[in-house]
């Protein structure tokens, strides 16, 4: 049942994404309204799926690649909805909702059965560590979408060539503000995620930090966002520079999450394709 729910939400994210894209092309309000409804329904079903899976497995089900990808899709969709409603930024959907769909469909192609918990993961730290990081990463995903929108819009204003997107995209200032807000929320989450991970590592592996590829890439990601936050607060990095950094930062997030799992062997390899 929960596997079906988790996979079925992919369809909701797909329809939601298509509707948001339809909206940005035609500017028909109904597209955005329905898109939001589908995404909301997807999030509700998705969360219900995870609740059922939690009940069956007896542990927080974010321990293999299927679960992680699916959960990431859920947090991205959720974070997007919060920002969309807060800023009434319907065009954002065309840039962020497809991310939720992409992770969701990736997960849908993986076997979804409950596989049992690796002994090393059986800890209170599991939900804390993983939730903090996924929510933080989802917020960065929103910043990534806003960053792309910023670059597209900025290019038009700067080059004085207004294409069809000019009217559709929001103002530069709003997009920059989303960048900043996401940073101030995502960065503390990322920081706490790494710290909790480190404490847990001390319990589980007997060392706070062992330069495992996941840890190394987390640190790189953290340094990128730390640099962006610092630049913003001290010398006023904003606009294009901030947008580019938000995009690079999210690429680092993706590599830390997927690239490391799929390409580099290490202690964190609970969720590679072979499992």
């Amino acid at each position, binding site marked *: 049942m929960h596997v079906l729910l988790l996979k079925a939400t992919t369809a909701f994210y797909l329809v939601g994404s298509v509707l948001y894209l339809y909206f940005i092309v035609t500017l028909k309000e109904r597209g955005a309204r329905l898109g939001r409804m589908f995404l909301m329904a997807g999030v509700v079903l998705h969360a219900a799926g995870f609740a059922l899976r939690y009940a069956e497995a007896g542990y927080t089900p974010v321990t293999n690649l299927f679960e992680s990808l699916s959960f990431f899709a859920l947090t991205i969709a959720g974070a997007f909805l919060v920002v969309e409603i807060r800023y009434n930024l319907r065009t954002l959907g065309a840039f962020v909702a497809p991310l939720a769909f992409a992770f969701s469909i990736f997960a849908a192609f993986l076997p979804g059965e409950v596989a049992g918990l690796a002994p090393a993961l059986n800890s209170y730290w599991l939900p804390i560590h993983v939730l903090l990081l996924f929510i933080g990463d989802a917020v960065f995903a929103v910043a990534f979408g806003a960053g792309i929108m910023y670059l597209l819009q900025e290019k038009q204003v700067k080059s004085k060539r*207004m294409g069809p997107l000019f009217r559709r995209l929001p*103002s530069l200032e709003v997009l920059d503000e989303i960048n900043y807000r996401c940073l101030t929320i995502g960065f503390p989450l990322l920081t706490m995620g790494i710290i909790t991970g480190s404490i847990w590592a001390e319990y589980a592996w007997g060392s706070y930090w062992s330069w495992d590829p996941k840890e190394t890439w987390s640190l790189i990601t953290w340094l990128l966002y730390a640099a962006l936050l610092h630049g913003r607060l001290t010398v006023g990095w*904003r*606009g294009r520079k901030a947008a580019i950094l938000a995009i690079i930062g999210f690429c680092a997030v993706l590599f830390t999450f997927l690239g490391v799992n799929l390409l580099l062997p290490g202690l964190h390899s609970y969720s590679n394709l072979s499992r």
Partner: protein
Amino acid sequence: MGQIIIIGVNHRTAPVEIRERLAFPPEAMGRALRGLLEKESLKEGVILSTCNRVEVCSLARQGFLGTAEVKEFLAAYHAIPSEELNGYLYHYEGDEAVKHMFRVASSLDSMVLGEPQILGQVKDAYGYGAEFQTIGPILDKFFAKTFSVAKRVRTETRVASSAVSVSYAAVELARKIFGELSDKTAMLIGAGEMCELAARHLLSAGVRGIMVTNRTFERAVKLAEEFGGTPIRFDELPVHLKRADIVLSSTGAPHFIIRKHDVEEVIRIRKNRPMFFIDMAVPRDIDPDANQVDNVYVYDIDDLNNVIDLNLEERQKEAVKAEEIVEEEVRAFRRWLDAQQVTPTIITLRRKYEEVKNVEVAKAVSMLGAEDPKTRKVVESLASSLLNKILHAPIASLKKDADGRNQMELVALVREIFDLPEASGRTGRGSKLALWQAEFVQSEIERKTGRKVGITRIKTTGDMILDVPLARVGGKGLFVKEIEEALLSGQIDLAVHSMKDVPTDLPDGLTIVAITRREDPRDAFLSVKYRSFAELPRGAKLGTSSLRRQTQLLGLRPDLSVESLRGNLDTRIRKMEEGRFDAIILAAAGLRRLGWESKITQYIPEEMSLPAIGQGALGIEIRSDDPDTREAVSFLNDRETALAVRAERGFLKRLEGGCQVPIASHGRVEGDKIVLQGMVGRPDGSEVIRGSAQGSISDPEALGVVLAEQLLGRGAMKILDEVYRAAGS
């Protein structure tokens, strides 16, 4: 039923000299519209007059005749020889006319495609038609549709959405850079006309503040005053530049006054908060290379012009989509129009020949002298089947969808060859409220009895005379008289009145058979400036059409200046919203029926202003010798309201007052008693006599008389004598 026609000139067909001569100034609209409808075949009419176009839109009995008559009217009204005028005029009929009006209102026919003013001008034209009662049900619906089409075009296409003037383009860009402008500051350097215009647009778009600088400081001070901004000395410009988010520049300087390195410096101090430079000067004031600085956007006049050109191109593309919407809506309106014509035509056709049949059957039966039911039945079925077979073809072709053929012409043809009268039925004054009342009764009767009811609009003299207070126009029951004549002549079968308009003495042969449940009888206070009657300042200008309200409200507040307010409800409200009155008083019930409750600022309690006699109740008047209609409408009667209104009218009758006398009365049924309150006063409010009485429900009129006697004895007699003398009766 008729055909919509449009005859007119626009900027493409006629030079400005001709358009000027054809224009109808607002003050001439009433006379022009009335003159237009004097033409034989024109039933409804609206005149649109702007600097780019003059168009007459009319509902004509026959398209070609109407067109000729409108042309005649235009030539005669403006004293331009027809031969000269006709060369400039275009004319549209039916679907073409519908399409034309949709395109005009959607700004697809404008000189600047998508310009926003035309819709407002069409709305004004409609407003005049409504005010002068030259709009009937068809044009009413037509214009409502026109406005919704224009709105659709506006929201679904971008025909009107992108800026096509330099100053608007600047504001639009500022919005895309800064989003909200309310926390942004602008700086105006120099003083070009275009720059000032852009500054004005920025201010109205919500910019928080504006700094003004000029080589001549006095000029800066003067401009700053005009904009409500801060003047800045020209040599202090570099100091203040960092505070400006938007810089508008237009000086006569021969070289750049702001260089790239100035901008780099400022943006550093601003910690990269974006800046938008609008350079309207030629030669330019701002180094275009400054645009390369991150978070800085520099637009010169050519850049803005390019943006506008792109926008115009875009509008052209969007216009194609808009035309599709228009086509679609023309078809939808066509279907509505057809439905309006076809069904009543079929009903009238059938009814007419059913009557013929019945007469002929009766004749035949009596000629046969046969009383036995069988013969009768045979004759009847012969007649029926003959009738059905003959009518089958015309009815079938009426019902058939008009594929390409003009249904309206077909309906007109059928009506003509079968000699069918125009649909008849019932009445009301031609205003929205009256129409609502009539429609309400229509739907109630149709729902309860299944009988079909048609509505006839009757224009009354009262609606035409707008500049004289109601109290001075032709005695009592002004609105009612012409309607009663239509009733007596059989043109209509029942009339729906507001009970407060119905005179106490009905003509012989007519009777009120039902009084509907009373709506909220209170008066409503409407104001955009003040939240309640009590809040009105000394000497405030209050509009009302009734002496009753004037008397009572002046009694409470002798300082107010009360002035006459006439016209339809919408006209009255508009007059208030336009600021011609500080506040107005209207009947709450009328507003609520039309769904305009939200416009009510405050309900005035009965203690302050006693309602008019019969206020809030509708009366159904019929011919006394029409038992059929009597039976059909008797269910509309509300016992308690009827009792109360009868008592109120007894009071009114004893005082011999119509609506031109400051008299008020309001009754309420409590168990088997009626509690009646009454008021008589002087129009200037210097004396207001109020009283109340109770009586049995068995004789409400008598209770009214008792209360009237009581007030007469307390001084009302003297007041009434004086008032009648002043009114000259």
